[in-house]
């Protein structure tokens, strides 16, 4: 296989080197600085003081009361838990809404699949901020839903839709739906149609066919989609900032605030590590399942 088109070792290094240096220097090195910053003292004017401190980690669970004693503070664990819950809810809703779409597209004639997939992906390539803003227009007190319901005489006072956890969930689902549809589509599209026809011929009703033929074979796609939705949803910033009213509603907002108005970089770094740890745990768990063959039907 050593055809003449293969690059020499120095050729590989020369071609691959620049990209690796850029990502290494400007992403890997910065990421390695995050744990270091988390063990330093906060500079109240921003940045860190080069003094060792575990203050940032203490702060995750405790706060000092006025006598200087540490008391348990559940504010930050609650934000972490809310983020996990919202990300899980988003994943479940995306699966529920995305699976039928992936299935329908996969069973279309090839010529029509391309354009349908483009329609699924276009929103992904449009501005996330703008897409989230469009939900403010719909959900707010003078928004389209409330105006519509008031005009129809169903309600007299506007319903509180914006700045709720539900609004964040809608925004997250809206953001990440394409991530769920595409891998499930890819998995279903590979299923031999003969299997579906065989199930039909053997008098399986549609539900049995779905449960015993399609679902087991689509499982790798579902798992991939769940990861692609859950991981970015967990760290998202825009949906909670705009639809949740901009308080510290999810980890991403909490981290951002530490590097903005709160000026507590070590604490922000510590929270970033907690977020990274959660993401890594999910990825490793998934890799473990794949290796142990739990995906295979």
């Amino acid at each position: 296989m050593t055809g003449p088109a293969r690059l020499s070792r120095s050729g590989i290094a020369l071609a691959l080197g620049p990209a690796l240096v850029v990502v290494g220097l400007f992403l890997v090195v910065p990421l390695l600085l995050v744990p270091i910053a988390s063990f330093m003292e906060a500079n109240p004017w921003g940045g860190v003081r080069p003094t060792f401190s575990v203050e940032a980690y203490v702060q995750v669970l405790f706060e000092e009361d006025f006598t200087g004693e540490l008391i348990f503070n559940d504010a930050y664990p609650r934000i972490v838990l809310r983020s996990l819950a919202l990300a899980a809810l988003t994943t479940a809703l995306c699966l529920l809404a995305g699976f039928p779409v992936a299935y329908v597209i996969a069973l279309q004639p090839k010529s029509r699949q391309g354009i349908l997939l483009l329609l699924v992906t276009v929103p992904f390539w449009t501005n996330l901020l703008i897409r989230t803003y469009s939900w403010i227009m719909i959900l707010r007190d003078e928004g389209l839903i409330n105006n519509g319901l008031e005009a129809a005489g169903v309600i007299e006072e506007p319903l509180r839709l914006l700045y709720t956890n539900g609004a964040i969930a809608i925004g997250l689902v809206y953001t990440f739906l394409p991530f769920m549809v595409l891998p499930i589509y890819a998995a279903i599209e590979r299923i031999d149609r003969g299997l579906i026809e065989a199930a039909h011929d053997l008098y399986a009703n549609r539900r049995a066919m779905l449960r015993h033929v399609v679902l087991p074979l689509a499982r790798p796609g579902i798992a991939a989609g769940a990861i692609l939705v859950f991981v970015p949803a967990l760290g998202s910033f825009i949906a909670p900032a705009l639809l949740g009213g901009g308080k510290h509603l999810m980890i991403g907002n909490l981290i951002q605030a530490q590097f903005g108005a709160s000026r507590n970089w070590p604490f922000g770094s510590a929270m970033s590590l907690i977020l990274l740890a959660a993401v890594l745990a999910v990825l490793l768990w998934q890799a473990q399942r794949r290796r142990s063959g739990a995906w295979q039907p």
Partner: protein
Amino acid sequence: MSETVRMSPAQGAAANRGARRFAVGRIPGFGAATWAFFLFLYAPIALLVVFSFNGSNSATIWSHFSLDWYVKVAANSDIQRAALNSLIVAGVASTLATALATFAALAMVRGGPFRGQQLALSTLLLPLIVPEIVIAIAMVIFFTGIGLSLGLGNLIIAHTVFCIPFAYLPIRARLDSLSPVYEEAAQDLYADNWRTFWHVTFPLLAPGILAGLMLAFITSVDDFIISLMVGSAGTTTLPIYIYSLIRIGITPQINAISTLVLLISFIFVSLAWLIARRSEASP
């Protein structure tokens, strides 16, 4: 079913077969769910565009058609500056990222298996795995730590890094589907590596490179959180500007700017898609 009863048995069987092949695998309700899905995906965007043409001050109560908000956008020098910043950052960063990604993809595909290949791939795709907010704060710590403040330069560095995987993936896909025979033929004819690349590989790879460039460009234009954190006073890009407007209050002016940004994305995605599809047909 009642229709088939009235037909002759042969006709009925034929119709039945046709209908059955169509119906196999069809799940009742899934079709409706798909329509609802696309409505959910596009209705908010459509509403946003519609209200950008609203004559009144409200972004949610329709009065009459007008282009006033677009006139205001065109006359707003802050928006022009933000748009210029966005274009500079996205133009430079996507070009750099695409150049880096092209050579990286060549090494990964044409280099054959080599030690550390998996690690190299993971590194190239790292920006896709690490949550954006973590990338943002890591870069803030890094730039502050080494005291680098180049204004737009910092933003360009940051964008180049996270655009690399978006440029890499379509280029890699194109390269995977390219048979190496053309390059081998060139080398048989004593073309050196560089000439082979420039006269053979590059033209064949061009659709993938162009698609990668466009996807990197819109990824950069759309970026919000990293630009927000890494940016400084003079580096407001369009999404940052739109965010500050939303915080002040909802007006159709936001809809008008948003519509223009959406238009750019739509054009670029469609072009990238058309190029990729056309190139599937060619060698």
